[in-house]
Protein backbone atom coordinates (compact mmCIF):
# COMPACT_ATOMS: atom_id res chain seq x y z
CA UNK A 1 0.00 0.00 0.00
CA UNK A 2 1.45 3.38 -1.00
CA UNK A 3 0.37 6.76 0.30
CA UNK A 4 -0.35 9.56 -2.18
CA UNK A 5 0.42 12.92 -0.63
CA UNK A 6 -0.69 16.43 -1.49
CA UNK A 7 2.29 17.79 -3.48
CA UNK A 8 4.37 20.64 -2.10
CA UNK A 9 3.44 23.61 -4.30
CA UNK A 10 4.44 26.35 -1.85
CA UNK A 11 8.03 25.85 -0.64
CA UNK A 12 7.84 28.92 1.60
CA UNK A 13 4.89 27.60 3.61
CA UNK A 14 5.31 23.82 4.00
CA UNK A 15 1.98 23.48 5.83
CA UNK A 16 0.04 25.61 3.36
CA UNK A 17 -3.56 24.62 2.80
CA UNK A 18 -4.79 23.97 -0.71
CA UNK A 19 -7.74 22.43 -2.50
CA UNK A 20 -8.20 19.09 -4.20
CA UNK A 21 -9.39 20.53 -7.52
CA UNK A 22 -10.01 17.49 -9.71
CA UNK A 23 -9.81 13.72 -9.55
CA UNK A 24 -9.32 12.27 -13.03
CA UNK A 25 -9.80 8.76 -11.64
CA UNK A 26 -12.62 7.36 -9.54
CA UNK A 27 -12.32 5.50 -6.27
CA UNK A 28 -11.44 1.86 -6.87
CA UNK A 29 -9.92 2.39 -10.34
CA UNK A 30 -6.92 0.33 -11.36
CA UNK A 31 -4.05 2.78 -12.07
CA UNK A 32 -0.57 2.50 -13.56
CA UNK A 33 2.55 3.91 -11.91
CA UNK A 34 3.03 7.54 -12.99
CA UNK A 35 -0.57 7.91 -14.19
CA UNK A 36 -2.24 11.26 -13.65
CA UNK A 37 -4.63 10.88 -10.73
CA UNK A 38 -5.65 14.43 -10.00
CA UNK A 39 -4.91 18.12 -9.82
CA UNK A 40 -4.46 20.22 -6.69
CA UNK A 41 -4.19 23.94 -6.17
CA UNK A 42 -2.56 26.24 -3.60
CA UNK A 43 -3.18 29.97 -4.01
CA UNK A 44 -4.15 29.57 -7.68
CA UNK A 45 -1.00 27.57 -8.43
CA UNK A 46 -1.95 24.10 -9.62
CA UNK A 47 0.00 20.86 -9.61
CA UNK A 48 -0.41 17.28 -10.76
CA UNK A 49 -0.95 14.29 -8.50
CA UNK A 50 0.68 11.22 -10.06
CA UNK A 51 0.33 7.59 -9.00
CA UNK A 52 3.48 6.59 -7.07
CA UNK A 53 2.79 2.91 -7.78
CA UNK A 54 0.47 0.65 -9.74
CA UNK A 55 -2.63 -0.78 -8.10
CA UNK A 56 -6.14 0.01 -7.00
CA UNK A 57 -6.60 3.64 -6.00
CA UNK A 58 -8.54 4.73 -2.92
CA UNK A 59 -9.47 8.40 -2.81
CA UNK A 60 -9.47 9.89 0.71
CA UNK A 61 -10.26 13.53 -0.05
CA UNK A 62 -13.25 14.72 -2.09
CA UNK A 63 -13.07 17.24 -4.92
CA UNK A 64 -13.32 20.86 -3.71
CA UNK A 65 -12.20 19.77 -0.23
CA UNK A 66 -9.33 21.62 1.48
CA UNK A 67 -6.17 19.76 2.46
CA UNK A 68 -2.72 20.69 3.71
CA UNK A 69 0.41 20.06 1.69
CA UNK A 70 2.01 16.75 2.57
CA UNK A 71 -1.15 15.13 3.91
CA UNK A 72 -2.27 11.77 2.55
CA UNK A 73 -5.03 12.34 -0.02
CA UNK A 74 -5.20 8.85 -1.54
CA UNK A 75 -3.73 5.38 -1.30
CA UNK A 76 -2.70 2.89 -3.96
CA UNK A 77 -3.30 -0.67 -2.81
Amino acid at each position, binding site marked *: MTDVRFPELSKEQPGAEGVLATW*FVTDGDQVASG*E*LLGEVMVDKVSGDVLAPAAGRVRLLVAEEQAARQGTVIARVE
Partner: protein
Amino acid sequence: MSVTESATAQAEPAVRRLTTARAMVEGIAQEMERDTGVVVLGEDVAKYGGIFGSTTGLLDKFGPQRVIDTPISETAFIGLGVGAAVEGMRPVVELMFADFFGVAMDQIYNHMAKIHFESGGNVRVPMVLMTAAGGGYSDAEQHSQCLWGTFAHLPGMKVVVPSNPADAKGLMISAIRDDNPVVYMFHKGIMGLPWMAKNARAIAPVREEPYETPIGQASVAREGGDATVVTVSLSVHHALDVAEQMSAEHGVELEVIDLRSLVPLDREAVLASVAKTGRLLVVDEDYQSFGLSGEIAATVAETDPGMLRVPVRRVAVPDVPIPYARSLESAVLPTRERIKEAARELVGA
Protein backbone atom coordinates in the same frame (compact mmCIF):
# COMPACT_ATOMS: atom_id res chain seq x y z
CA MET B 1 -3.34 -13.83 -22.08
CA SER B 2 -5.01 -15.71 -24.93
CA VAL B 3 -4.98 -14.54 -28.54
CA THR B 4 -8.64 -13.54 -28.28
CA GLU B 5 -8.05 -11.39 -25.21
CA SER B 6 -5.13 -9.66 -26.85
CA ALA B 7 -7.19 -8.83 -29.93
CA THR B 8 -9.96 -7.37 -27.77
CA ALA B 9 -7.49 -5.22 -25.88
CA GLN B 10 -6.14 -3.81 -29.14
CA ALA B 11 -9.60 -3.10 -30.54
CA GLU B 12 -10.53 -0.81 -27.67
CA PRO B 13 -8.65 2.49 -27.87
CA ALA B 14 -6.95 3.70 -24.69
CA VAL B 15 -9.08 6.40 -23.11
CA ARG B 16 -8.70 8.46 -19.96
CA ARG B 17 -10.35 11.51 -18.48
CA LEU B 18 -8.69 14.84 -19.24
CA THR B 19 -9.53 18.49 -18.90
CA THR B 20 -9.99 20.42 -22.12
CA ALA B 21 -6.70 22.24 -21.48
CA ARG B 22 -4.79 18.96 -21.12
CA ALA B 23 -6.46 17.55 -24.22
CA MET B 24 -5.36 20.59 -26.25
CA VAL B 25 -1.79 20.25 -24.98
CA GLU B 26 -1.79 16.56 -25.87
CA GLY B 27 -2.93 17.36 -29.41
CA ILE B 28 -0.20 19.95 -29.87
CA ALA B 29 2.46 17.65 -28.36
CA GLN B 30 1.53 14.74 -30.60
CA GLU B 31 1.76 16.96 -33.68
CA MET B 32 5.14 18.31 -32.50
CA GLU B 33 6.37 14.74 -32.19
CA ARG B 34 5.14 13.93 -35.69
CA ASP B 35 6.37 17.06 -37.47
CA THR B 36 9.42 19.14 -36.49
CA GLY B 37 7.92 22.10 -38.35
CA VAL B 38 5.30 22.50 -35.62
CA VAL B 39 6.42 25.20 -33.18
CA VAL B 40 4.56 27.15 -30.50
CA LEU B 41 4.99 30.85 -29.83
CA GLY B 42 3.26 33.56 -27.88
CA GLU B 43 3.18 35.42 -24.59
CA ASP B 44 3.83 33.13 -21.59
CA VAL B 45 3.43 29.93 -23.61
CA ALA B 46 6.78 28.45 -22.53
CA LYS B 47 7.83 28.89 -18.89
CA TYR B 48 4.35 29.72 -17.63
CA GLY B 49 2.66 27.10 -19.82
CA GLY B 50 -0.06 29.38 -21.15
CA ILE B 51 -2.11 31.45 -18.75
CA PHE B 52 -5.11 29.18 -19.42
CA GLY B 53 -3.09 25.98 -19.50
CA SER B 54 -3.09 25.57 -23.29
CA THR B 55 0.66 24.88 -23.55
CA THR B 56 1.57 23.48 -20.10
CA GLY B 57 4.56 21.14 -20.18
CA LEU B 58 5.50 21.71 -23.84
CA LEU B 59 8.71 23.61 -22.97
CA ASP B 60 9.99 20.69 -20.87
CA LYS B 61 9.21 18.25 -23.65
CA PHE B 62 10.39 20.17 -26.70
CA GLY B 63 12.76 22.87 -25.47
CA PRO B 64 13.07 26.63 -26.08
CA GLN B 65 13.82 26.28 -29.81
CA ARG B 66 10.29 25.04 -30.46
CA VAL B 67 8.31 26.56 -27.58
CA ILE B 68 9.03 30.25 -27.60
CA ASP B 69 8.07 33.00 -25.18
CA THR B 70 7.64 36.22 -27.13
CA PRO B 71 7.71 39.88 -26.10
CA ILE B 72 4.40 41.67 -25.67
CA SER B 73 4.03 42.62 -29.31
CA GLU B 74 1.22 40.76 -30.99
CA THR B 75 1.98 42.36 -34.35
CA ALA B 76 5.57 41.12 -34.23
CA PHE B 77 4.97 37.55 -33.15
CA ILE B 78 1.84 36.94 -35.23
CA GLY B 79 3.81 38.34 -38.17
CA LEU B 80 6.63 35.95 -37.26
CA GLY B 81 4.13 33.12 -37.34
CA VAL B 82 2.82 34.17 -40.76
CA GLY B 83 6.38 34.30 -42.12
CA ALA B 84 7.24 30.90 -40.67
CA ALA B 85 4.06 29.40 -42.14
CA VAL B 86 4.72 30.89 -45.57
CA GLU B 87 8.19 29.29 -45.44
CA GLY B 88 6.68 25.88 -44.76
CA MET B 89 6.52 25.55 -40.99
CA ARG B 90 3.32 24.93 -39.04
CA PRO B 91 3.39 27.42 -36.18
CA VAL B 92 0.81 27.48 -33.42
CA VAL B 93 0.66 31.09 -32.28
CA GLU B 94 -1.17 32.01 -29.11
CA LEU B 95 -2.91 35.36 -28.85
CA MET B 96 -3.41 35.48 -25.08
CA PHE B 97 -6.93 36.95 -25.21
CA ALA B 98 -9.07 37.21 -28.36
CA ASP B 99 -9.73 40.78 -27.23
CA PHE B 100 -6.12 41.68 -28.12
CA PHE B 101 -6.58 40.98 -31.82
CA GLY B 102 -7.09 44.69 -32.37
CA VAL B 103 -3.41 45.53 -32.03
CA ALA B 104 -2.44 42.90 -34.59
CA MET B 105 -5.35 42.98 -37.01
CA ASP B 106 -3.21 43.92 -39.99
CA GLN B 107 -1.13 40.75 -39.56
CA ILE B 108 -4.21 38.62 -38.97
CA TYR B 109 -6.58 39.94 -41.56
CA ASN B 110 -4.44 41.52 -44.26
CA HIS B 111 -1.62 38.97 -44.19
CA MET B 112 -2.49 35.67 -42.52
CA ALA B 113 -5.95 35.51 -44.09
CA LYS B 114 -5.17 37.00 -47.51
CA ILE B 115 -1.71 35.86 -48.64
CA HIS B 116 -3.10 32.66 -50.15
CA PHE B 117 -5.53 34.70 -52.25
CA GLU B 118 -3.14 37.51 -53.20
CA SER B 119 -0.63 34.94 -54.42
CA GLY B 120 -3.19 33.43 -56.75
CA GLY B 121 -3.25 30.33 -54.59
CA ASN B 122 0.51 29.79 -54.88
CA VAL B 123 1.40 30.45 -51.25
CA ARG B 124 -0.09 28.65 -48.27
CA VAL B 125 -0.25 29.88 -44.69
CA PRO B 126 -0.66 26.73 -42.59
CA MET B 127 -0.72 28.36 -39.18
CA VAL B 128 -2.94 28.10 -36.14
CA LEU B 129 -3.84 31.24 -34.26
CA MET B 130 -5.15 30.01 -30.95
CA THR B 131 -6.78 32.37 -28.53
CA ALA B 132 -8.76 32.48 -25.30
CA ALA B 133 -12.30 33.82 -25.41
CA GLY B 134 -15.29 34.41 -23.20
CA GLY B 135 -16.31 35.84 -19.88
CA GLY B 136 -18.13 34.95 -16.70
CA TYR B 137 -15.36 35.65 -14.19
CA SER B 138 -15.37 39.46 -13.89
CA ASP B 139 -12.55 40.23 -16.29
CA ALA B 140 -14.47 43.08 -17.91
CA GLU B 141 -14.68 44.57 -21.36
CA GLN B 142 -11.15 43.95 -22.66
CA HIS B 143 -10.71 40.35 -21.45
CA SER B 144 -14.14 38.72 -21.78
CA GLN B 145 -15.20 38.91 -25.39
CA CYS B 146 -15.84 35.97 -27.68
CA LEU B 147 -15.45 37.77 -31.02
CA TRP B 148 -15.62 34.57 -33.05
CA GLY B 149 -18.24 36.22 -35.21
CA THR B 150 -15.68 38.87 -36.16
CA PHE B 151 -13.09 36.33 -37.31
CA ALA B 152 -15.78 34.29 -39.07
CA HIS B 153 -17.06 37.40 -40.86
CA LEU B 154 -13.68 38.12 -42.44
CA PRO B 155 -12.93 35.72 -45.29
CA GLY B 156 -9.75 33.64 -45.48
CA MET B 157 -9.61 32.01 -42.07
CA LYS B 158 -11.15 28.83 -40.77
CA VAL B 159 -12.61 29.31 -37.31
CA VAL B 160 -12.97 26.43 -34.86
CA VAL B 161 -14.56 26.67 -31.42
CA PRO B 162 -14.50 23.38 -29.47
CA SER B 163 -16.69 22.77 -26.43
CA ASN B 164 -15.22 19.64 -24.85
CA PRO B 165 -11.93 17.80 -24.28
CA ALA B 166 -12.29 15.21 -27.07
CA ASP B 167 -13.14 17.79 -29.73
CA ALA B 168 -10.49 20.17 -28.40
CA LYS B 169 -7.78 17.60 -29.10
CA GLY B 170 -9.15 16.45 -32.45
CA LEU B 171 -9.77 19.97 -33.73
CA MET B 172 -6.29 21.06 -32.64
CA ILE B 173 -4.72 18.24 -34.63
CA SER B 174 -6.93 19.03 -37.64
CA ALA B 175 -6.08 22.73 -37.34
CA ILE B 176 -2.33 22.08 -37.29
CA ARG B 177 -2.54 19.73 -40.30
CA ASP B 178 -4.77 22.10 -42.28
CA ASP B 179 -3.01 24.07 -45.01
CA ASN B 180 -5.17 27.13 -44.33
CA PRO B 181 -4.87 29.56 -41.44
CA VAL B 182 -7.12 28.33 -38.65
CA VAL B 183 -8.27 30.48 -35.75
CA TYR B 184 -8.71 28.14 -32.79
CA MET B 185 -10.84 29.79 -30.10
CA PHE B 186 -11.14 28.25 -26.67
CA HIS B 187 -13.52 29.58 -24.04
CA LYS B 188 -11.77 29.87 -20.66
CA GLY B 189 -14.81 28.31 -18.99
CA ILE B 190 -14.40 24.99 -20.81
CA MET B 191 -10.72 24.46 -20.00
CA GLY B 192 -11.23 22.68 -16.66
CA LEU B 193 -8.91 25.06 -14.84
CA PRO B 194 -8.87 24.57 -11.06
CA TRP B 195 -9.05 28.31 -10.37
CA MET B 196 -12.13 28.93 -12.54
CA ALA B 197 -15.73 28.00 -11.74
CA LYS B 198 -16.08 24.22 -11.55
CA ASN B 199 -17.44 22.76 -14.78
CA ALA B 200 -18.04 19.02 -14.81
CA ARG B 201 -18.43 19.03 -18.60
CA ALA B 202 -14.84 20.32 -18.97
CA ILE B 203 -13.44 16.93 -17.91
CA ALA B 204 -14.23 13.98 -20.15
CA PRO B 205 -12.76 10.87 -21.76
CA VAL B 206 -10.16 11.48 -24.46
CA ARG B 207 -8.47 8.88 -26.66
CA GLU B 208 -4.73 8.61 -26.23
CA GLU B 209 -3.70 8.20 -29.87
CA PRO B 210 -3.67 11.18 -32.28
CA TYR B 211 -6.93 11.67 -34.20
CA GLU B 212 -8.58 14.39 -36.27
CA THR B 213 -11.98 15.94 -35.63
CA PRO B 214 -13.22 17.21 -39.00
CA ILE B 215 -13.33 21.00 -39.31
CA GLY B 216 -16.74 22.16 -40.54
CA GLN B 217 -18.79 19.35 -39.04
CA ALA B 218 -21.24 20.09 -36.24
CA SER B 219 -22.17 17.47 -33.68
CA VAL B 220 -25.50 16.66 -32.11
CA ALA B 221 -24.63 17.05 -28.43
CA ARG B 222 -28.10 15.90 -27.40
CA GLU B 223 -30.96 14.52 -29.47
CA GLY B 224 -34.50 15.82 -29.00
CA GLY B 225 -37.62 16.37 -31.08
CA ASP B 226 -39.29 19.46 -29.61
CA ALA B 227 -36.89 22.33 -30.38
CA THR B 228 -33.39 22.91 -31.73
CA VAL B 229 -30.77 24.83 -29.79
CA VAL B 230 -27.84 25.81 -32.01
CA THR B 231 -24.83 26.96 -30.07
CA VAL B 232 -21.10 26.74 -29.54
CA SER B 233 -18.45 26.39 -26.82
CA LEU B 234 -19.39 27.07 -23.17
CA SER B 235 -22.99 27.74 -24.17
CA VAL B 236 -23.21 24.10 -25.28
CA HIS B 237 -22.67 23.13 -21.63
CA HIS B 238 -25.34 25.56 -20.46
CA ALA B 239 -27.76 24.39 -23.17
CA LEU B 240 -27.24 20.75 -22.13
CA ASP B 241 -27.93 21.65 -18.50
CA VAL B 242 -31.12 23.44 -19.52
CA ALA B 243 -32.14 20.55 -21.80
CA GLU B 244 -31.84 18.12 -18.88
CA GLN B 245 -33.90 20.42 -16.64
CA MET B 246 -36.61 20.92 -19.28
CA SER B 247 -36.83 17.19 -19.87
CA ALA B 248 -37.30 16.52 -16.17
CA GLU B 249 -39.62 19.45 -15.42
CA HIS B 250 -41.71 19.79 -18.58
CA GLY B 251 -41.13 16.61 -20.59
CA VAL B 252 -39.73 18.80 -23.36
CA GLU B 253 -36.81 17.38 -25.34
CA LEU B 254 -34.37 19.93 -26.72
CA GLU B 255 -31.93 18.98 -29.44
CA VAL B 256 -28.57 20.67 -28.86
CA ILE B 257 -26.35 21.25 -31.88
CA ASP B 258 -22.71 22.02 -31.12
CA LEU B 259 -21.43 23.79 -34.22
CA ARG B 260 -17.74 23.17 -33.31
CA SER B 261 -16.66 25.20 -36.36
CA LEU B 262 -18.00 28.54 -37.58
CA VAL B 263 -15.94 28.50 -40.78
CA PRO B 264 -16.82 26.34 -42.58
CA LEU B 265 -20.30 26.37 -41.07
CA ASP B 266 -22.26 23.10 -41.06
CA ARG B 267 -25.52 24.61 -42.29
CA GLU B 268 -26.88 21.17 -43.21
CA ALA B 269 -26.77 20.06 -39.58
CA VAL B 270 -28.79 23.12 -38.55
CA LEU B 271 -31.32 22.64 -41.33
CA ALA B 272 -31.73 18.92 -40.67
CA SER B 273 -32.49 19.54 -37.01
CA VAL B 274 -34.87 22.47 -37.61
CA ALA B 275 -36.68 20.44 -40.28
CA LYS B 276 -37.33 17.88 -37.56
CA THR B 277 -38.29 20.21 -34.68
CA GLY B 278 -39.73 23.32 -36.36
CA ARG B 279 -38.37 25.47 -33.56
CA LEU B 280 -35.00 27.24 -33.38
CA LEU B 281 -33.15 28.93 -30.54
CA VAL B 282 -29.65 30.23 -31.18
CA VAL B 283 -27.45 30.74 -28.14
CA ASP B 284 -24.25 32.73 -28.62
CA GLU B 285 -21.92 34.36 -26.10
CA ASP B 286 -20.77 36.78 -28.81
CA TYR B 287 -22.53 40.08 -29.48
CA GLN B 288 -26.03 39.66 -30.88
CA SER B 289 -26.08 42.01 -33.85
CA PHE B 290 -24.33 41.23 -37.16
CA GLY B 291 -23.05 37.88 -35.92
CA LEU B 292 -23.44 34.11 -35.62
CA SER B 293 -27.01 34.14 -34.33
CA GLY B 294 -28.21 36.20 -37.30
CA GLU B 295 -26.29 33.96 -39.70
CA ILE B 296 -27.98 30.84 -38.36
CA ALA B 297 -31.41 32.46 -38.57
CA ALA B 298 -30.68 33.61 -42.13
CA THR B 299 -29.59 30.10 -43.11
CA VAL B 300 -33.05 28.78 -42.21
CA ALA B 301 -34.88 31.77 -43.67
CA GLU B 302 -33.01 31.52 -46.99
CA THR B 303 -33.55 27.79 -47.32
CA ASP B 304 -37.13 27.26 -46.20
CA PRO B 305 -38.76 29.57 -43.65
CA GLY B 306 -41.76 27.24 -43.81
CA MET B 307 -39.82 24.84 -41.60
CA LEU B 308 -40.36 27.19 -38.67
CA ARG B 309 -43.55 26.74 -36.69
CA VAL B 310 -42.72 29.73 -34.48
CA PRO B 311 -40.30 32.65 -34.95
CA VAL B 312 -36.59 32.12 -34.25
CA ARG B 313 -35.34 33.11 -30.80
CA ARG B 314 -31.86 34.37 -29.93
CA VAL B 315 -30.00 34.50 -26.62
CA ALA B 316 -26.77 36.42 -27.11
CA VAL B 317 -24.88 39.31 -25.55
CA PRO B 318 -26.82 42.53 -26.08
CA ASP B 319 -24.68 45.03 -27.95
CA VAL B 320 -22.82 46.44 -24.98
CA PRO B 321 -19.27 45.91 -23.68
CA ILE B 322 -19.02 43.11 -21.08
CA PRO B 323 -19.41 44.71 -17.62
CA TYR B 324 -17.01 44.10 -14.74
CA ALA B 325 -19.63 43.93 -11.96
CA ARG B 326 -20.67 40.29 -11.57
CA SER B 327 -24.37 41.11 -11.41
CA LEU B 328 -24.23 43.17 -14.60
CA GLU B 329 -22.05 40.62 -16.36
CA SER B 330 -24.56 37.86 -15.50
CA ALA B 331 -27.30 40.02 -16.95
CA VAL B 332 -25.67 40.18 -20.39
CA LEU B 333 -24.17 36.67 -20.70
CA PRO B 334 -26.25 33.79 -22.09
CA THR B 335 -26.78 32.18 -18.70
CA ARG B 336 -28.79 29.01 -18.08
CA GLU B 337 -31.62 31.21 -16.78
CA ARG B 338 -31.83 33.24 -20.00
CA ILE B 339 -31.55 30.11 -22.15
CA LYS B 340 -34.27 28.35 -20.19
CA GLU B 341 -36.65 31.31 -20.36
CA ALA B 342 -36.23 31.55 -24.13
CA ALA B 343 -36.59 27.78 -24.57
CA ARG B 344 -39.77 27.74 -22.51
CA GLU B 345 -41.27 30.56 -24.58
CA LEU B 346 -40.23 28.75 -27.76
CA VAL B 347 -42.07 25.55 -26.87
CA GLY B 348 -44.86 27.14 -24.79
CA ALA B 349 -43.85 25.29 -21.61
